[in-house]
Structure formats: C-alpha cells, structure tokens
C-alpha cells in the first residue's frame, strides 16, 4: 500500500540557512503523526513542504504516490486533497463563515451552490458551530475561528489533514474545543500530520511521534514510548522543559 505521505531526503534552505537537512519519513493512511521540537527546528517548514507552500530545495515528497516536487504535477489538484490548518486560522475576513467554506468547493471542485452549502453545513455541525454560518470571522473567538478553519478544510473532502500548530495562537481555555474536534477527526480515521506543542494530545491521539531538532529527525516512534523514554539527550532536554 502506498503511504499517504512519503518524504525522502528532503532538504530546504532559506538563503544560506539550511532549515531541513535530509528528512525521511512516512505517514501511513489513517495514521496520526505528531511532530514536536523546539522552535526553529524546521517542523513547520517540513509540514509546509508537504503541500509545497514551501518549495523543497532537494529531495522528493510523495503524496499518495504522486511526486509533488515534479514541475509537471497539477499542484492545485493535489492541494485540494490535502486539508491545511494554520496557526493564525487565515479565514477570509471579507466573507461570512458559510462563504468561507463554500468558496473553494465551488471554484475548485465545481460543486453547485446547494451541494457546497450542504457540505459546509454538515461540517459546521461536526465542529459544533452550526449556528455560526452567517457570522463573520471577526465576530468569532480564536477557538471558533480555528474550528471554522478546520471545517473549511474538511469541506473539500480531503484525504489527509495538515495542522501547523493549530492551538498555539489560542487562549488556553479555548484550546480544548479545537483539540476535541481533532480528536474526533482522528477517531474517524483521518490521516493527520500535526505540528504541535500539545504533548497530551500527542500521547493520547498520536500513532507516531516525531521529534525534530536543527533540521533533522532525532527520534520517532510510539508517542507514549518516546515521551516516557526519550533516547536522545536533546529529546530528554526538550521534554523536561515542556512537560
């Protein structure tokens, strides 16, 4: 079976700074992989290379067996199958929640208005915000905005979801609602790659935990195992600070 995401010898430099120094890893279908590590370790860059929001310098990224670093690949088609959730939500502020969810369904998937709105409404119910369809993003709390952003990504019926520190910009009391939504998504079998600082979530929901530092993967394995028994000295140091 082809992996959902397979990264081989991935390098990424910004100018003279090498941020990713040869990354190899895979996410199997239905797997939840959490990526942790200190800031500047390259974990967000890695995630952003998976849908080519960042252009890899070298190496290959296979999404469902398709090499997305191939210049001939239909990137928009690949991206429409990969949901992405950002730290800063990035809802479209000039549209209400329903239109946020319908825009790409209509433009990319060419769904009819009725079909798009039905999908949008069912995804809003899924994230517990069915009553906010007409609201504008500015009138929602951060936690609600992030749940709308998740619903927007889900409305494209993606095969997998990428989360880039989805709870880092939230007030602590709002984090739980977002994690609940992600937990339910994982339970439904969604393939997920999550860059996070939420160790509790990683331990409880993750199938695999990846620890990155200075552009390389230092350790990966069962989350409970890695968190309880870190092998590498730098992993131990990092975990002692965040746990």
């Amino acid at each position, binding site marked *: 079976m082809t992996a959902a995401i397979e990264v081989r010898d991935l390098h990424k430099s910004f100018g003279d700074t090498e941020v990713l120094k040869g990354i190899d890893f895979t996410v199997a279908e239905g797997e939840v992989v959490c990526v942790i590590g200190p800031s500047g370790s390259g974990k967000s860059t890695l995630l952003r290379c998976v849908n080519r929001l960042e252009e890899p310098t070298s190496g290959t990224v296979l999404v469902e067996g398709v090499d997305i670093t191939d210049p001939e690949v239909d990137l928009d088609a690949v991206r429409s*199958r*990969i*949901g*992405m959730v950002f730290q800063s939500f990035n*809802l479209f502020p000039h549209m209400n929640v329903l239109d946020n969810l319908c*825009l*790409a369904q209509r433009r*990319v998937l060419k769904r009819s208005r009725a079909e798009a709105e039905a999908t949008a409404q069912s995804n809003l119910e899924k994230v517990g915000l069915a009553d906010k369809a007409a609201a504008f993003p500015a009138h929602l709390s951060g936690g609600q905005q992030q749940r709308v952003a998740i619903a927007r*990504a889900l409305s494209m019926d993606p095969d997998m979801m990428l989360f880039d520190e989805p709870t880092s910009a939230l007030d602590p009391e709002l984090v739980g609602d977002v994690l609940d939504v992600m937990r339910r998504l994982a339970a439904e079998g969604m393939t997920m790659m999550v860059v996070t600082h939420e160790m509790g979530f990683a331990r409880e929901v993750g199938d695999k935990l990846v620890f990155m530092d200075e552009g390389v993967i230092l350790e990966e394995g069962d989350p409970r195992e890695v968190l309880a028994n870190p092998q590498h000295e730098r992993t131990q140091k990092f975990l002692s600070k965040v746990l």
Partner: protein
Amino acid sequence: MRRSTRRRLRHGALYALLLGGVAALVLIADWAAITSNFFDRDVFEKIWPEIVFEGARNTIVYTAIAFTVGLVLAFVLALMKLSPLAPYRWLATAYIEFFRGLPVLIVIIAFAFAVPIAFGWIPPGGPRGAAVMALIVVSAAYMAETLRAGIQAVPKGQIEAARSLGMSPTWTMISVVIPQALRIVTPPLTNEFVLLLKDTSLIQVAGVFVGQKELTNFASDSLSIYSNATPLTAAAVLYLVITLPLTQLVAYLERRTQKAR
C-alpha cells in the same frame, strides 16, 4: 507661583492674543470692499445656475471619466508591477516614475498641443478630450502605486489559505486578495479622487469650447466678464461642497478600519 496657576496664566495670555488678532482683523478689514467684490448678489444671479449646470457638472464629468479609466489603467499597471516577469515590472516602474515625476500641466500641454502638432493627431472630444486623457495617464501612475501597496498589504496567510485549498493563482487574486485590497485602498483612493477633482481645473489650458468649461474655468472667465470675484467665491464653495463630504468619508472609513483591527 504654583504650577497650575502658571499654566492658567499662560493659557489666558494665548486666548487674549487670539482674540486681539481676530478683533484687529475685523477692524482693519474693508468690509464694504469684501462684500461688493466677493459676495455681490447681482453678479451671483448672473452666473446662477450656470455655474452649477455647466461648471460643477463638467468638473464632475471630467473627474468621473478620468478616475474610472485611470483606475482601470492603474490596475493593469499594479498587476504588471507585481508580475513574476521582470520586463513587465520594469515597464510599469518606468511608467509610474515618469508620470509621477512630471508636473500635470506639462502632460496636459503635451497631449493637447505637442502630440497633435507633431503627429497630426486629432484627440477625441477635442482639446479638452486630450486634457482628460492626460489626467487619466497621470492619475493612473499614482493610483497604480496605491493599488500595488493595497494588494501587498493583504496578509500572506490569506494567499496561502486559498492556495492550500487548491485555488488557482487567478481565483485567489479575484476572490481573496482583490476584495481585501480594495477595502484597504478605499481611503487613499478617495484622496486620489479629491486630488484629481482639483486637477481638472488645469484642463482649461487646453482651451475648451462653449459649454465645456469646468468650475474654475467658468469662474475665472466670469470674473473677467464682471470684474468681480463673486464667481470665484461661488466656485470655492462648490468645490468644498463636493470635497468636504469625501474627506469626511475618508476619515470615517479610516476610523472604521482601525476599529476592525
């Protein structure tokens, strides 16, 4: 002396100075000359309502045409300036810097006289048509910079969100970037509109036919005819009637954007 007393004295002195100044102006002023030269009822009745139906109307028509066409041209220039292809960027930059660096009057004279004489070109709409085209060409250069700044002020995360949903660069531009950019540039564009409205007073150097005079031209010609400045006063009031609501609108819009952030 106590600090608060000193402050009260200082303020008192400033008020006294102001009152004294105003009183002196009122006393010195030749009220009879001011009234008869700037506020003459008979002269006013001679130019009313033509000053509105010809002067103000033409001012608004010239401004509207120059602004609308200029905005379209500005939009093309802004997109060129953001193009990934270097020659397009160079071309747009050259255009913008060239026309922003010149006095509007030079460009109007070039369009109205130099080009017609050199190439036998007959401008559509006559000399004033040439002048309006000059205003279009110049205002587009200014508005292109405004639009470019507006487009670039849309947060990068917005584009990333749209692209990550699989939207093409074109659709991202049309449905995500431009609507937000337009909101950002509405206040500066309104300012451009006001500047353009005032610049239409330069059209008269091209020479216009009967019925084509804009507000300033109408007023200055009437001033010569009646040897009286009342038409100028009327024109000034009419300009303010148009521009003040617009500048107030800008202030309101700016307050609203501040609140939304």
